[in-house]
C-alpha cells in the first residue's frame, strides 16, 4: 500500500504549482487552470486522508465530491466572465484589464 506521505507530498506539490501559476501567469485562462490545480490538490488530500487515516467514515469522500461539483460551477461562471472581458478588451491577457489603478 502507498504511504500517506507520498499523497501528502504530491498534493503539496500540486498546491504550490497552482499558487505559483496563479501568481506568475499573465493569461486569464491559464490562471483559471492554476486554480483548478489548487482545487485538485485539495480533493486528493481529502480522498487520501479518508482512505488511509480514517477508513471508517466517508466524510472526506463526500467533501471531494461536493468540491468537484462546486469548482465546476465556479469555473463555468469564471469562463463566462472571461468571455465578457474578451468582448470588451479583445484580449485575455491580464495587462489588458489593468485600467483601474491606485
Amino acid at each position, binding site marked *: 500500500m502507498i504511504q500517506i506521505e507520498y499523497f501528502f507530498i504530491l498534493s503539496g506539490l500540486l498546491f504550490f504549482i497552482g499558487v505559483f501559476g496563479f501568481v506568475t501567469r499573465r493569461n486569464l485562462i491559464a490562471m483559471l487552470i492554476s486554480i483548478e490545480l489548487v482545487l485538485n490538490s485539495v480533493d486528493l488530500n481529502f480522498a487520501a486522508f479518508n482512505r488511509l487515516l480514517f477508513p471508517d467514515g466517508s466524510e472526506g469522500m463526500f467533501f471531494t465530491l461536493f*468540491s468537484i461539483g462546486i469548482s465546476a460551477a465556479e469555473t463555468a461562471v469564471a469562463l463566462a466572465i472571461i468571455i465578457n472581458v474578451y468582448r470588451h478588451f479583445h484580449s485575455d491577457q491580464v495587462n489588458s484589464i489593468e485600467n483601474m489603478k491606485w
Partner: protein
Amino acid sequence: MNYTDFLKMIPEAVLTAILVITFICDFASARQTERKWMNPLVSVMFAALTVVCLLPMAPVHAFGDMYVTSSAVNVIKAILAFGSLIVVLQSRSWAEASGKEGEFYMLLTSTLLGMFVMVSAGNFLMFFLGLEMASVPLATMVAFDMKRNESAEGAAKFILTATFSSGVMLYGISFIYGACGTLYFDDVRHTLMTVIASGDLTKVFLPVMGLVFFFSGLGFKISLVPFHFWTADTYQGAPTTVTGYLSVISKGAAAFTLLSILFNVFTPMDRYWHVLLMIVVVLSITVANLFAIRQGELKRFMAFSSISQAGYIMLAAIGDKWPTSVSALSYYILVYVVANMAVFSIISVVEQNNGGKTDIDDYNGFYQTNPKLSFLMTLAMFSLGGIPPFAGMFSKFFVFMAGVDGSDIHTTMGAWSYAVVFIALLNTVISLYYYLKIVKAMYIKHNDNPLPTFNSDNNTKFALALCTTGILLFGICSYVYDWISMAA
C-alpha cells in the same frame, strides 16, 4: 432522512420562497416593457423576511448538527436581512434602467441565502457550501453592467480571487480533517483540545497549518490587508448598488462566520490565532487608512475605507470572551450597514444624474444645489468616522471594549491587545481626516458649476430615511445594543 428538518430552517425557507416568487413573477411578466411593481413587491418580501428574522426563535439543531443556530446567529440574520432590504429599496431606479431587475433580485436573494447557510453552519462542508452559494452569484452581480468595461474588469478580478481564496481555504480545511478525522465543529474542537494538550510538535503542525490556510482564505473574503488587492478594483468596477451590497452584507456575514469559527472551533489554539489576528487587524486599519487618503475616486475611496472598517470589525475578535465579542461585532455590523448604505445610496443617486462619474471633485459645492443630500452624507461620514452623538462612536466604543475585555495588561498577550486597540484608536483620527475631506468638498470648496439639483425616487428616499434613523437612533437608544447583547 427526515424531511421535516427543512421546516426548522425558517429564514432560509422564507428566502427560498422569495426566490421562487421572484422567479415566477419575472418569468410571467417577461414581455412587459415596464415592470414598476417589481421593486415594491421584492421590498415588501424583504421587509417580511426582516420581521420573520426578528421574531424570537428557539435555537435549532437540524440534519444531524449540520445546521445549527443560536440566538446570536438569529440576530446577525436579522441584521443582514435589514441591510438587504435597504439595498433592494435603493436599487430601484438603477435596476429598472438596466432592464434586468428580475435577475438582479434573484441573484441578490440567492447570495443572501448562501450567507444565511454560512452563518448557521455546524460543519465545514455546510460552511463551504454556503460560502460558495454566496460568492458565485456575487461575481455575476459584479459583472451586471455588461456594457461597462470596468464592470467586466472588476468581475474578472473578483471571481479569480474568490475561487483562488476558496482553494486556499479548502487546503486548510483538508489539513484540519487530516488532523481530526471529522468536519463537525464540535468534534473538531474536542479533538483539537487533546491534540494541542499533548504538546507533540509533529501533531500540532497539521492543525496550525490548517488554521493559517483557513484564515487567509477567509481573509480574502473579508478583504483584510495582506489579502485586499482585489477590493479596490472590484468595488470601483461593480455597479454602485452591488458595491454597497459587497461592502456591508457580504463582509458582515463573512466576518461573523470567521469570529464564530475562531471562537467555537479553534478555541484550543487561541494563542496561535490571536497573534495572527492582531497583525492582520493592525495592518488592515493602518495600510487601508493611508491608501484611502490619496484616493480621488469616491467608490475606490469607500473601498479602502471598508478595508479599514473590516479591521475594526475583526478587532472585536481579539478579546477573550465570546458574549462581548460577538455582540460588539454584530452591533458594529448593524451600524456600519446603515452608515455605509447611506453613503452608497447617495453615490448611486449622484452617479445616475452625473453620467456615471463618481469622482470626489464632482462633489465640490454639492451643498449649494442639494443641501438635503449633502447633509445626509455628512451624517453618514460622521458616523463612519466615529463622532460622538452618532451611532458610529458607540459601535467603535463597544469594539474597543471587546478588544481588551478579559485581557490582563501585565501579561505579554494582554499588553499586546491593549497596544492593538491603542493603534486602532490613533487610526480613528486619520480616518476622521479623510472622511471630513468629503464633507469639506461638499460644503467649503467653491465650484462655479456644481452638480444640478435633482430629486431621488421615493424608494431611495425611504432607504435614506431608514439609514438616517439608524445613524441617529441606534447609538442613543440603548435598547438596540441590549437586544444584541441579550442574544449573545
